[in-house]
């Protein structure tokens, strides 16, 4: 038993390095996508202190909007690359409207309430978005319009370490786009006027208010940014499988990523995503058969729990200082 748990998996890894690379790559890709979802959470948590449960459904909703709009266009005979990009722009507009509405209708009346109340309010948003999305676009799984958006399909097989490792092109594209977006966000945060205001708000609401930063404006911007991140995540994830409400369950995986990295840290979200993605794939691949499979559903949480026991504020989270 001990041999099976502690030694045998590593023997397998050493025995077939090409499989190990494949598993690592798949873990990396799903880690990047987890990290993207977690990034949306972190953006909002930093700026407004809201633990935004609706991020998962925002991913689904944005992707559904994109595909749904494209289908509507196609029904009028307007299809192809241009239509896809028009739909993309319109989906971004929808996310912007959503951000403004949420800020105006939900966040502003709930200013200064305890965290758990705001958390619950995002549950309310989740319900509304589920109902709205299903009513407008239908609940059936949809095909992501990957070709029309110039996203590559197929895969590249590379011969290495005595075997073939297959890289899906869409996975490579997802990793590249995610990296570009994270870099873009970092530049936005560090170099622009709004980015500086965002960081000021994250540090202290009151101090930011006192130097004349409009909290309401910042919140709308941050929710819009999270909406854009959700849109990109939705496209990537949708292109890998398809667009359906099952994605929402996947979004729950972002929670362990989030606490692992620390709720307030952007690098934490990325590192956490990679740790969870890779850990989960390796766990499923090498230790899963011992337990009868299907351990993906909880393995990520256990990884996060172990890290939390060591550092209760997450790997990169702000140190929790408690005073009486």
């Amino acid at each position, binding site marked *: 038993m001990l041999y099976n748990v502690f030694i045998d998996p590593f023997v397998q890894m050493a025995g077939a390095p090409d499989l190990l690379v494949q598993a690592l790559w798949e873990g990396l890709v799903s880690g990047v996508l987890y990290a993207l979802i977690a990034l949306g959470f972190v953006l909002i948590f930093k700026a407004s202190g809201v633990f935004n449960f609706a991020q998962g459904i925002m991913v689904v909703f944005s992707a559904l909007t994109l595909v749904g709009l494209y289908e509507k266009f196609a029904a009028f005979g307007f299809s192809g690359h241009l239509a896809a990009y028009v739909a993309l722009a319109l989906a971004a507009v929808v996310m912007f409207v959503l951000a403004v509405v949420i800020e105006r209708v939900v966040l502003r009346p709930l200013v200064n309430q305890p965290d758990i109340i705001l958390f619950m309010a995002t549950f309310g948003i989740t319900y509304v*978005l589920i109902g709205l999305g299903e009513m407008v676009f239908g609940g059936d799984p949809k095909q992501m319009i990957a070709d029309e958006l110039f996203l590559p399909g197929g895969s590249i097989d590379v011969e290495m370490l005595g075997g073939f490792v297959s890289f899906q092109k869409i996975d490579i594209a997802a990793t590249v786009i995610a990296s570009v977006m994270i870099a873009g966000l970092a530049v936005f945060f560090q170099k622009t006027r709004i980015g500086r205001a965002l960081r000021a708000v994250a540090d202290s609401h009151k101090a930011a208010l006192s130097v004349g930063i409009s909290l309401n404006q910042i919140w709308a911007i941050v929710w819009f940014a999270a909406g854009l991140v959700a849109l990109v995540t939705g496209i990537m994830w949708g292109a890998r499988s398809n667009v359906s409400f099952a994605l929402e369950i996947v979004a729950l995986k972002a929670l362990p990523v989030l606490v692992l990295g620390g709720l307030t840290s952007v690098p934490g979200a990325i590192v956490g995503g990679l740790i969870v993605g890779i850990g989960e794939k390796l766990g499923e691949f090498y230790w899963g058969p011992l337990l009868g499979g299907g*351990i993906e559903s909880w393995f990520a949480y256990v990884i996060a729990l172990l890290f939390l026991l060591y550092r209760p504020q997450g790997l990169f989270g702000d140190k929790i200082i408690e005073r*009486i």
Partner: protein
Amino acid sequence: MLYRETGQFKQSYASDQAIFPILQDRIGLAIILAVAFVAIPLLGNEFVLASLMIPFLILSLGAIGLNLLTGYTGLLSLGTGAFMGVGAYAAYKLSTLFPGINILVWIVCSGFVAAGIGILVGLPSLRIKGFYLAVATLAAQFFLQWCFVRISWLYNDNPSGAIEVPARTLFGIAITGPSATPVTRYYVVLVIVAVMTLIASNIVHGRIGRTWMAVRDMDIAAQLMGIRLLRSKLLAFAVSSFYCGVSGALMVFLWLGAAEPSAFEINLSFLMLFMVIIGGLGSLIGSFMGTALIHILPILIRSLPEALGLPLAAATVEHLTFMIVGALIIFFLIVEPHGLARLWQIGKQKLRVWPFPY
């Protein structure tokens, strides 16, 4: 005029510390109990009993359990569904292993099994706090759910993967299984829920409840005052899981009759949390109010278009229900973030000073 404590003199500490020190409250409670024990079984039809009242009482019990943990002790938990599942599977397993012993004994025992699991899950709570703890309890939720699916011993290797309730009797009357009438089931549930609510009320009004509230308000300060954090937090987890476990066992045995693992998935946990927060954190009566709202509201909304004669497709109604429930949650949080229990208190205060504004 009617609701005023003037003139009700207390002549002993015991009467001053009673749960309901005001006469009118006692009368109100007596009326509620009379309605619950006499009027509803007499007047209610099968739908009211089986689809409204039994689930309402059972879910209220779970909501009380979660409220003890989240509302009174301040430990956010998203694992309620799994704890209820533990209770259900434990009761099923025990009652099929030892069919000779009364089912009620096993329902209570299943609460203790859930309490044991709850203590294990609660262990990290000393180090991990707030939302981090919520995610830690999610680990329990998903792990336990996986156990319900994968460990076939738990459901006696039933090929469908579901647990089916065996027929059991109490004093010769069938209380579980297909032959039990809604009225009997209702009475069994009602008695259990009433007794356990009374116990919960005594716990939260006593030393333990005060300890919990001190921990909730600030655990470090509580620790400095000599409260043993580990013990009180674990006790909160244990008692809360006990309530959830019994509620889960009742849910399968006296409401659903059979359950698949998906009955105890994460959505149930979220639903329970809604009930507690909409009802009011740290309030037992709030648990009942929140459950009433969250459980009965969707049923009402669903039946509304039919009653009004609106020609809406079933799917559209379903989606609209989702949207309306979501919007109402936000609405209630904005109007009264402290929950329905606070509205109730405000109403009582208004009644006390009536006809004057203050």
